[in-house]
């Protein structure tokens, strides 16, 4: 079996047979008759059999040619409709978007953005994979990813959509009994609550720009920020957490107050990553535009 025949040649053969003559096919396709004839000969050579009986003014199909025409016709139609579907899929505001985002960021902030997007685009389905770990974006075929921090891989396009500020909090009860706290230097005398993996506190004074860094000797360490907040609420000490937790509705119930408010931990960028600026689908374009607009209105920092 020869396998190196051209799909284009096959389509032209199909078209010629449908039209009944080279001349008619030439009119429809805009391809000269001589070229059509040559392309069909080429196809016959590649297939190793004759498809057409030619005479001076017309042609007829050989048995082999008729069989081939009948078999290939539906397949060509299928190919055509698959390509059309693809086109619709790429340009319509429906279908599935697969997105990955950090767990806490989504619970506290981004979730609302996703829900509003779903309401604005009811035909688009959203598949959300929440993970605080590194996910392989290519292998898992994500359309877009929300990432905290920068990105080195240049094959992805990054769009900065926000910035996380880190602030200190504790309960008034703890602060009343604790040593004074006027400079982060004083934190050495305090009970510190650490939420992994933030094991170094790089701090900047918002007005003066003074920098101070601390490796906290954790009195209590938790791999979950909510639990760290709970510990602080239980008067166990001072903790450094993303300040968007402060704006969460539950926060008010927690009796925590901001301490050392002029000092903030290192800001971390939130980026929306996606690929292929050109071949981007309409639904992903709609999603990106929606997120960027939404972030403008709902900035957490």
């Amino acid at each position, binding site marked *: 079996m020869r396998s190196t025949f051209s799909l284009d040649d096959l389509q032209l053969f199909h078209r010629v047979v449908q039209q009944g003559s080279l001349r008619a096919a030439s009119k429809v396709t805009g391809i000269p008759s001589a070229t059509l004839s040559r392309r069909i000969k080429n196809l016959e050579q590649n297939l190793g059999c004759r498809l057409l009986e030619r005479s001076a003014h017309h042609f007829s199909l050989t048995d082999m040619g008729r069989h081939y025409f009948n078999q290939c016709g539906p397949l060509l139609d299928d190919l055509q409709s698959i390509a059309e579907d693809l086109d619709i899929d790429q340009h319509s505001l429906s279908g599935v978007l697969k997105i990955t985002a950090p767990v806490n960021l989504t619970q506290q902030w981004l979730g609302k953005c996703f829900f509003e997007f779903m309401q604005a685009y009811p035909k688009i389905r959203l598949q959300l994979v929440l993970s605080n770990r*590194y996910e*392989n*974006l290519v292998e898992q075929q994500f359309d877009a990813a929300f990432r905290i*921090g*920068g*990105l*080195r*891989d*240049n094959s*992805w396009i*990054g769009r*900065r959509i926000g910035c996380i500020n880190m602030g200190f909090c504790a309960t008034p009860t703890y602060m009343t009994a604790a040593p004074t706290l006027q400079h*982060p*230097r004083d*934190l*050495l005398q305090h009970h510190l609550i650490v939420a992994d*993996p933030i*094991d*170094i506190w*790089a701090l900047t004074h918002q007005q003066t720009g003074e*920098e*101070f*860094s*601390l*490796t*906290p*000797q954790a009195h209590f360490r938790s791999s979950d920020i909510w639990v760290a907040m709970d510990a602080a609420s239980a008067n166990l000490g001072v903790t450094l957490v993303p300040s968007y937790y402060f704006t969460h509705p539950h926060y008010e119930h927690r009796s925590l107050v901001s301490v050392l408010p002029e000092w903030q931990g*290192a800001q971390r*960028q939130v*980026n929306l990553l996606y690929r292929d600026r050109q071949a981007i689908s309409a639904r992903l374009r709609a999603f990106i535009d929606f997120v960027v607009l939404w972030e403008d209105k709902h900035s957490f920092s």
Partner: protein
Amino acid sequence: MKADNFNLQDYCARIGYTETLNADLPTLQALMRAQLFSVPFENLDVQAGKLVSLELADIVKKIVYNPRGGYCYEVNSLFAIALDAVGIDYYLVGARPMFYPTRRARTHMVVIAKINGEEYLCDTGFGSFGIRAPLALSAVNQSIQQDDDVFRLACSDGKNFTLQALTKGEWVNQYGFDLYPHELLDFIPANYFNSKSPDAVFVQQFLVVKHDELGRTILSGNRLRRVEKGESTLTELSPEAIFTTLKTEFGLTPESSV
């Protein structure tokens, strides 16, 4: 060595040191371990094409306040500045890395601290199998357990020492040194070599080491190795995962393209 911008209290905050400070052995031991466990050995500047600065004020700013890590001249200089501030006597010596297949120059810098007439090898920045606490120079040719690692200071002539680590049942040479006192500026050529030479491992790939109570985590190139209780696990990382890992495992943020 002294730096104008060095503040002992800020240094202690940076390394998470909350014990009392005295010019004695317990302080030396605790300080070295606190710095080793909080300041990563790292060559991000070299990988970014920079010549690493040996100006003491730059070192203090970079490690204490930014807060970054550094390679041997930086982290061991910082340690020396801290010893100076605490009142512990010390001097610097040059060491010859010995894990290469061929003999190499003395490009490593270590600190020898002196307490009550005894001298101790201190090192907070060796990119390979580094000690985890000060080693007394009098305790030569004997196995010394430090956490889950075993070291030996081989010496046959009373002058030349070789630090060895027990790896898979065999003593492996790490570096050799004698006790000729150096100044930091003696390491300027070696620093230039390690920052700029294509033959220097620091120029060739990321090399980041962070020690902790349980073991050490090492990133070399795209290989992430975790050594804990003598067990070693290896992960190969994609370029993007290297970037994420620098942040999550080592608390470092390299210059990003976004």
